[in-house]
């Protein structure tokens, strides 16, 4: 493979991945989606580092493993971040009952105007579909005594 163009391609893909994560983090309001976008930015950086490591290796320079080492630590940091973010998001969601980051705009600086949704769009029917498992096997016959006499498990 042409190593220079491989490096360029990886840098371009990593940059686009980072930029997509940036857009998502700036635009989306669901805290979980914001977190996923932060992880996506980390992925973009990892793609960059892997590309550079391969390029240095193909030139015969020392430090070809450096890119992969850095990605190992990025994965470590991402795992830490996921644990703490999960605890934080669960706390915040338990207090307000929703995952909206705009619910915490009381923390804004004094004198700043509040953010108000101008128009909440109608929910379309095609958005209301949730992922479902395909039914497997036959449905067991319903026993009316079962809910009463069901043993506690």
């Amino acid at each position: 493979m042409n190593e220079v163009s491989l490096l360029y391609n990886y840098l371009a893909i990593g940059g686009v991945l980072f930029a997509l994560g940036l857009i998502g983090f700036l635009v989306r309001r669901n805290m979980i989606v914001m977190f996923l976008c932060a992880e996506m930015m980390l992925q973009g950086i990892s793609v960059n580092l892997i590309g550079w490591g391969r390029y240095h290796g193909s030139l015969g320079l020392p430090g070809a493993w450096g890119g992969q080492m850095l990605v190992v630590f990025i994965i470590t940091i991402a795992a830490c971040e996921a644990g703490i973010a999960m605890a934080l998001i669960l706390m915040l969601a338990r207090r307000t009952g929703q995952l909206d980051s705009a619910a915490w705009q009381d923390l804004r600086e004094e004198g700043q105007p509040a953010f108000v949704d101008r128009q909440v769009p109608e929910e379309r029917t095609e958005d209301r579909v949730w992922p479902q498992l395909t039914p497997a096997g036959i449905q067991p016959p319903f026993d009316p005594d079962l809910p009463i006499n069901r043993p506690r498990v």
Partner: protein
Amino acid sequence: MMPTLVAALPTWKHVLQCPTFWALVLGALGLWLLLPTRLRFGNSLGSLLVAMAGGLFAYDLPHLGSWLDQSVFWILALVTLGAAVATIASQSPVYSAIWFALSLLGTAGLFLYNGAEFLGMATVVVYAGAIVVTFLFVIMLAQPEGHSPYDRLAWGGLPKVLGVVTAGLFIGILTFMLGRLKDEAAKPLAADAFAQAHENLVANDGILAEKHVANLGRHLFSEHLVSIELGGTLLLVALVGAVAIALHGRPRLDQQIEEALR
């Protein structure tokens, strides 16, 4: 080492003839339409524009040498970036998480393709297997009642435009600054360049040598030993912190018993 940064500023004519510029314009417009919005036909038009932008962007990337390499790379990049676009565009957070898992699989494929076997597997196991599944649990715990209005609209109009424009400028500046690297990539190579590069990658326990994981472990636990220890400590601290955050604010057990008895 060859220089990677560009030397001279481009003229407007040069910019207007560059496919990447138009790819960025179309991609920014398409993403603006795709993000949660209330426009009609926003999704189909936006996907069309983003697909055109992806085609133009791929057209402007330098060629990898053989068509087999090139098509494998394009498929992996298509999976990664397409799933990433769907992650930020889908309105349900459940679908966002699933698309993100697919994007991670594409990234793992890119890692494997570039000789990082262990990291590709680690990405699948740690990210797609653990982190995304954990966040699916959190979504199910925190949002059981279905779709919410805040998933169906963004932070108003201006932040959306600004975010898209920022990202477009970011990629534009990045690709522009790497201009000389691209010129270097477009040059015809010497006949033995492929073999030489492969030999360099294999020699001296390089990243394509046999016993990849053993070599990686050796580097990790010799040159980066202190960092590994620090990383382990950081994981422990994060674990303790997460438990502390999750327990904080919940009434303690003796208080619960008191309230129950009252």
